[in-house]
């Protein structure tokens, strides 16, 4: 075991790293959504076939998003150092890292949100329009709630991406598991430290992924019945062979669920 490992183990350095990584990731993801969610909504509604087409605005935002997304994060980080100094007065520390992460991930989040909202059936939007819903009501009561499961899946993917970025930003601005692995462990070639950092990252990603997907499934009200039918078919196929009729008979599927 390397001395660095022993040292980090004894002074709780690993846990500080985990804490910093989680803090940066969660804070950046939240801020990225504060910017990216409205941006995604604007991209959808100002589209030429959107609710309130504003083609020039849509074009400008779309180009801006594409530019930011096409810059590799490691270069964007370096380029943002003066920007961070101007705004925060520093280019190192968690604050600076969060700033860089937000600039890099907000456009990504906007595209995620955009694609989730575009999955919403146009017919449902049309129905809402036919009932006299205004643009704000359609966003608030149709687009966002109907896209909720997909938005959550998008948030999971975005958060995992930000987590990866946070390791990279640790090499420049300091902090987190990435910083421990790259700036502390690599010079002394402390392989055990590097691999523990990797393992901790894997565990964090797994937890985010599993919890996120569980929540996404939980809030999705589509195809509930089918899932229950499938489950009951597996567990109890002989007592209830007639799955087709279940569609017209909610009670039947409720009974199935109860037997699981």
């Amino acid at each position, binding site marked *: 075991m390397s001395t660095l490992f022993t040292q980090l183990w004894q002074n709780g350095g690993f846990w500080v790293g985990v804490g910093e990584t989680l803090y940066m990731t969660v804070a950046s993801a939240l801020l990225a959504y504060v910017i990216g969610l409205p941006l995604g909504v604007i991209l959808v509604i100002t589209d030429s076939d959107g609710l309130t087409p504003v083609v020039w605005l849509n074009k400008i935002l779309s180009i801006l998003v594409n530019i930011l997304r096409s810059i590799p994060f490691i270069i964007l980080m370096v380029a943002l150092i003066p920007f961070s100094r101007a705004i925060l007065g520093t280019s190192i520390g968690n604050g600076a890292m969060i700033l860089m992460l937000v600039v890099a991930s907000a456009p990504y989040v906007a595209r995620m949100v955009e694609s989730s909202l575009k999955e919403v059936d146009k017919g449902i939007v049309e*129905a809402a*329009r036919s009932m*006299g819903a205004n643009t704000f009501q359609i966003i608030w009561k*149709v687009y966002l709630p109907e896209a909720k*499961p997909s938005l959550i899946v998008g948030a999971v993917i975005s958060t995992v991406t930000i987590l990866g970025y946070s390791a990279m930003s640790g090499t420049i601005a300091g902090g987190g598991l990435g910083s421990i692995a790259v700036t502390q462990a690599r010079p002394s070639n402390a392989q055990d430290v590097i691999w523990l950092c990797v393992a901790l990252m894997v565990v964090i990603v797994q937890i985010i992924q599993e919890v996120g997907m569980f929540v996404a499934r939980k809030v999705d009200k589509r195809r*509930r019945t089918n899932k229950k039918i499938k489950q009951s078919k597996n567990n109890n196929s002989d007592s209830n062979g007639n799955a087709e009729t279940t569609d017209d008979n909610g009670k039947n599927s409720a009974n199935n669920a109860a037997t699981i």
Partner: protein
Amino acid sequence: MSNISKIQLINLTKTYPSPAGDVTALENIDLTIPDGSVFGIIGLSGAGKSTLVRCINLLERPTSGQVLIDGEDITKLPKKKLLRLRRNIGMIFQGFNLLEQRTVEANVRFPLELDRIPRDKANARVAELLEMVGLSDKAKSYPSQLSGGQKQRVAIARALATNPKYVLCDEATSALDPTTTESILGLIKDINKKLGVTVVVITHEMRVVESICTHVAVIDNSRIAEVGLVSEVFSFPQSEIAKQLIIPNLIRSLSGGEGTKLRLVFNGEGTDEPIISALAMECRVAANILYADTKNIDGKTFGHMVITVPEETTAKVKEFLDAHNVSYKEE
């Protein structure tokens, strides 16, 4: 104007720009939809009927022309007033278009939420509507747990939530099986009768018009080919497209052959005596039946029959038909 309460389309035209030049969806449409009617608009797919119905609540803006609702040209309304007006025009769709993440009752409550009706009042109205469409026991279900027919019932309840005076149905039964179609059509007819709601029905299915409509407009190639009472248009379709839609097999039976072809129309008004055998016995004319599609509803005969009779007996046969109160047309 004596009867101002109705939907009127005046000289309506809709064109879509496309790279290959403008595409005309509707051309010079003039249509009056009387209050209290169930007005069918029938045509082949691509004829422009879906665009037409969307012009009534301005989901599609006509390129030119007027849409008068109760005498007011709604194409000139400011946005706020237009949104308000849409609450007076319910709409149901082929794909039901329910909010998948909301329960049945929350779907029906949706238009009331848009209107900012207080929760308890809205819930009472929702219960009443679900009762009316026979889905009270499904209030807490989600759309994905319902069958197609049930979904359309929810959509109908939702369309009626704000007590609209008009309901537009865009191919409302096209995704449903025949039995379910019948029950949904029955419900629409009920709504028209009991609530006095004027219903506009877009369809490509003859039987839909046949079973619930009072009036029908036949639309073909972006234009109205024919319009009138269902009983008139169905008995004596004038335009080629109407004939093709209403009695497709009849067209084939009319080509070729010898003798005089007579199309007998039964619209429930004539006697129920066996007309062909009476013709044979009384006039001693042997008629050849080329085509017959008649049905008996409440003891009255409806439908069409095409017969040929020798040319020299034509006058005699016509006299006989007149005497027996049977409508006919020489084809």
